[in-house]
């Protein structure tokens, strides 16, 4: 067997960083560049103060909080149901997934997450995966736009428009869906909706394939993303990254597999992993996750209890009058339902004292809710663990050593939303 040679290969980032150290004495004055908060590549209101040596970044200080609205304080002052619309505004590119995450967290606190009707679980999974496709499409479109691939942006937004139309016919709103309720969903799927989802799935795979032909082997794209922004496996774990950013670094951790919730154990899908952890890997992971979401959605449509138009009248809410609002006819005709309606609207459901944490695999990563209840209808404290906030904390470690032009590639590949980061 030939002797294995240890090739001391350094990726461009490491080379640049070592060059900075070698040329320490020859360096001139450093320049401080303020990037953001209103900069097209920061996707919102992120501000980064960069210290530059020529084109090379020597120090990066991210500054967040420009979109801080105090959601955690607001949550302490209202009932659990009243907070649902605020979850739309966390990751506003995937509001359906946020609704599901929040509802599941409160249901875990109530201890009813196992009682959810199967049809409700399938509808929620369909919502989550549609949101995942929508969020990844926007993430990739904006990523491409930042690196000069304008066509991809136009393609993805055509597809997103179809998802918004589906959202509109399901929830009544395109953007701020507020679809879930604690213990169920606000309404069943409208007639013909499942067929429309199926049609959409058949169209989106064609467009994903077309995007792939535009980017994956594109020389400019590969040059700008490969070996840029490398996050090694242990660093990704140390910084608490989650979602595609964690899996892009090769860590096999997906909450849908690791801590299965809803009907995910019944569904078959693969978790794509990156090999190096650079921007290109994160791009590939997102691309493959969209295909896996399409796969999940097809299975959900095949298996959904009650069929497309719910001929067998499967319930979509838990049968507990102390948690879910009764139907309007019942309220008008029956005393017990009238009392339930009155108590639910004025006081909310009674969550027993205790504390829970529920993490949900959102498109951006792990969206977690820590709910501390002291009984009654309002949380004593609710902490939102937002994936974008944690993912961005790596910037001050990741950016130094890269060129100024790599910042847009790295930011695009991390795929964050400031509404969620700042809460």
């Amino acid at each position, binding site marked *: 067997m030939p002797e294995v040679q240890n090739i001391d290969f350094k990726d461009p980032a490491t080379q640049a960083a070592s060059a900075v150290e070698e040329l320490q004495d020859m360096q001139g004055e450093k320049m401080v560049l303020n990037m953001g908060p209103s900069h097209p590549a920061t996707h919102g209101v992120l501000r980064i103060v960069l210290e530059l040596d020529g084109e090379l970044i020597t120090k990066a200080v991210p500054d967040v*909080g420009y979109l801080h609205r*105090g959601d955690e304080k607001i949550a302490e002052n209202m*009932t659990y149901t*009243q907070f649902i619309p605020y979850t739309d505004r966390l990751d506003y590119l995937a509001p359906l997934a946020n609704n599901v995450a929040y509802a599941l967290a409160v249901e875990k606190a109530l*201890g009813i997450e196992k009682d959810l009707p199967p049809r409700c679980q399938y509808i929620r999974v369909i919502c989550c995966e549609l949101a995942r496709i929508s969020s990844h499409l926007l993430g990739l479109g904006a990523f491409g736009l930042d690196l000069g691939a304008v066509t991809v942006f136009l393609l993805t937004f055509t597809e997103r428009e179809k998802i918004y139309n589906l959202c509109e016919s399901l929830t009544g709103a395109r953007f701020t869906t507020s679809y879930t309720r604690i213990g169920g969903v606000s309404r069943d799927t409208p007639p013909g909706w499942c067929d429309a989802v199926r049609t959409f799935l058949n169209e989106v795979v064609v467009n994903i394939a077309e995007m792939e032909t535009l980017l994956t082997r594109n020389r400019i794209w590969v040059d700008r993303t490969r070996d840029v922004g490398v996050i090694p496996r242990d660093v990704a774990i140390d910084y608490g990254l989650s979602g595609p950013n964690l899996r892009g670094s090769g860590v096999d951790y997906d909450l849908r597999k690791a801590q299965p919730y809803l009907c995910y*154990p019944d569904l078959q899908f693969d978790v794509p992993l990156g090999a190096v952890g650079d921007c290109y890997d994160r791009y590939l992971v997102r691309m493959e996750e969209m295909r896996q979401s399409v796969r999940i959605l097809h299975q959900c449509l095949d298996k959904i209890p009650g069929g497309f138009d719910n001929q067998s009248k499967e319930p979509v809410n838990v049968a507990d009058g102390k948690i879910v609002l009764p139907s309007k006819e019942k309220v008008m005709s029956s005393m017990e339902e009238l009392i339930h309606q009155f108590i639910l609207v004025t006081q*909310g459901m009674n969550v027993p004292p205790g*504390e*829970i*944490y529920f993490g949900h695999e959102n498109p951006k990563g792990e969206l977690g809710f820590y709910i501390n209840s002291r009984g009654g209808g309002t949380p004593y404290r609710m902490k939102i663990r937002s994936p974008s906030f944690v993912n961005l904390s790596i910037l001050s470690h990741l950016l130094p050593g890269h060129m100024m032009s790599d910042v847009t590639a790295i930011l695009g590949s991390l795929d964050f939303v400031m509404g969620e980061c700042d809460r």
Partner: protein
Amino acid sequence: MFIRVHPWFQFFLIVTALEFAQQIKTKFGDLISEPAGFRGEITIKLANAERIADVCEFARKELSFDYLVDISSLDNYGEDPRWTVVYHLRSLANGCELRVKADVGEEKSELPTVTGVWRTADWHEREIYDMMGIRFRGHPDLRRILMWEGYPYFPLRKDFPLAGKPTQIPEVAFTQAAPLEGGPFVTAPGGKDAIEREPRVRTPES
């Protein structure tokens, strides 16, 4: 029918988290409370918050809790000690989670940082300092993160009003109290009439 998690697997999850909690208790003795379970989650509480970094170090090095999910904080207004800091630990290899809590008194409002154990703790601790005013000793860069530098209050404290307080830093930033006429509709359950149940502003007592 629809089996969500295999029952054995669920059992396995809880037991390993409980075993880890017991191992921490064996190592640190009276410092650690008896592990408490709620909804399948295991919580341990530290008697002395000064040891939090040691416990976390042990959990990471010896018990493979390599992933810090989150740090949150609680304001137990009107109780002593006033603050509780809550750590969510996860082991990616074993897939089990553990919650570690530590009480901090109001006059001290300080505990050691865990940034040396997980670097992700950096921003979480900055956020707690910003929102609650609890300081982390040894933190490399303890600045405000969501509010701006120089903001005088800690907004997540229970005695900070929902409407906010007016502040003024000339030529930098300002806040005014928010108008609450149209909401948010504050709800305080248990009152005897609608006025008590739905006050415009919630006080720490209600």
